[in-house]
């Protein structure tokens, strides 16, 4: 059976519309998937460091120590503390502690020249490097 050209075109256009409908169902499915976790981890970082920010200088470089093995921790800390630069070491005059579990906090900060200035709670600490 040979279809007329206009019929073929109309079938293909209908396929286009079906394609768009199905793809939009997939898009909506993806959007709904975002909702449960809300992806607001970064926002929570912003809030976690609110009190710490008041104690830090407006510019410069601070060190960083954490029990978080994933690099996202330092990236999110940098995002929250901008315009300060967060270096991934403890060789700075001020060092930010970002801890998620209580166990490792004291073990990680073995350096005797790092002195705790303030514990802001919620795993956020500020250390000072004392001259050797």
């Amino acid at each position, binding site marked *: 059976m040979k279809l007329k050209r206009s019929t073929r*075109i109309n079938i*293909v*256009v209908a396929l286009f519309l079906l394609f768009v409908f199905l793809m939009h169902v997939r898009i909506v499915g993806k959007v709904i998937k975002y909702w449960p976790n809300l992806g607001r981890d*970064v926002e929570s970082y912003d809030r976690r460091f609110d009190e710490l920010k008041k104690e830090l200088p407006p510019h410069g470089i601070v060190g960083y120590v954490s029990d978080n093995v994933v*690099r996202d921790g330092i990236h*999110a800390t940098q995002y929250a503390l901008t315009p300060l630069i967060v270096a*991934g070491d403890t060789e700075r005059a001020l060092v930010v502690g970002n801890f998620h579990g209580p166990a490792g906090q004291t073990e990680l900060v073995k350096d005797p020249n790092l002195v705790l200035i303030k514990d802001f709670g919620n795993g956020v600490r500020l250390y000072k490097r004392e001259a050797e």
Partner: protein
Amino acid sequence: MIYLLALSVVLPTLAGFFLVSLFWPKARASARHSVLKASLAVGFGLGLSSVVFFLWLLAGRASAAWLFVAEIAVLAGLAVVVLYRSRKKEDSPACHDLHTDSSEPRPIARILAAVFAIALCSAVIALAFVSLARPHGVKDSWSIWNLRARFLFRSGDHWQESFSPLVMWSSPDYPLLVPGTIARCWTYIGEETQVAPATVSIVFFAATITLIVSALSVLRSRGQGFLAGLILLGSVHFVDSGGHQLADIPVGFFVLAAFVLLCMQDRLPQHAKRLLFLTGMAVALAAWTKNEGLLFLVAITAARVVAIWLTKSGWGRLRQIVPYAAGLAPVLVVVAYYKAYIAPTCTLIAPQTLQTVADRITNPARYLEIAVTFARKAFDLAHWTVLLLTCYGLAAGAGKPKEERLGITTAAIAILFMLAGYFAVYVLTPYDLTLHLRWSFRRLLLHLWPGIIFICFLLLRTPEEALVGRFQPREAQ
């Protein structure tokens, strides 16, 4: 706050509209041309306003009022020139009669228009939800683009500190179109709000869609434009990325804009210089958006030369380089200054030695892995589209794009050069190849995706032509 945000987007878009109008062939008022110009205006306006913002930073970031005054002055200047030009009699009949369909839309175009409008609204609402769910975007958006925007906005006179090697993982060598646009919006508002990066992201997404629809409506027919728009709106990854606050959709916008303008100037040779000037500007703005835009600059320039040779269009066409370079120059000078004096060396180049480069080039396993990933990711992105376009091609037949042959050949070769460039970058990457491919290649495809769809629809007959069963003659040119 919302009014100031709207002002920060509308002002440059208006300036962009006047700029595009200044170089656009004069024609009787036509909705298709107006939408096309408005779509281009969004990208050109926001892009150039980010350049102005960067210059404002370099000049010592005087008060925000000065930035506002400077932009108003540019807008007023452009408006005066455009109004003065519009008084001159210079109507060009070729300009408004490029399309093949009649002025009165056929029923099929009406149906497609209605479905397109619903799909666009649905996509924009979905993106608004994505933005609410992820106000800071995905990992790469907050750790690269929004981070840089925060540095530019919060640092005061210390803004150049953000390019410190201590934050190398944030790709500090990337150009500033997206972070500059966001920081500029915040400067207008006077405070940070995540609505700004979300708005910029969605605006570029919507402009890309309207650009492809309006460009094909001008060059082919309404039906063809809406079909292309529907294909783009049906690309899940493309739509999803529209709310991710990344720079890939803006790069895709400028790549598409360059292809559209090249094809327009093929159809309107008497206005070629003006349209080539805009083409150069679109290419330069791609280079100001992402490093891949610099690759696009090389790819499209080389592709034009190869296309002229392949299509035997006459070497006299190489004179086109003058208006094209004139369009490139203003933004490219800023990009060159930024790369030379502000941005650190690209992280893909910096840690390489000759020995490691030689080892990577001579490792066939890398080539195989890249080729397999390219094929797999391209299949993931495009399999439904290819199937649908094949069905449509079989039903409607191929078109006869004789007049845009050079533009289409240029675009096709530029796409191949881009893919070859991406391939070479992966061969040489100092990062773990598997991870690098996994985290970036799908996004790189988005740079080319709207342009590929545009070229495909230029090559196919329009639904209006196919339903009539013959090519409708174009009106006198």
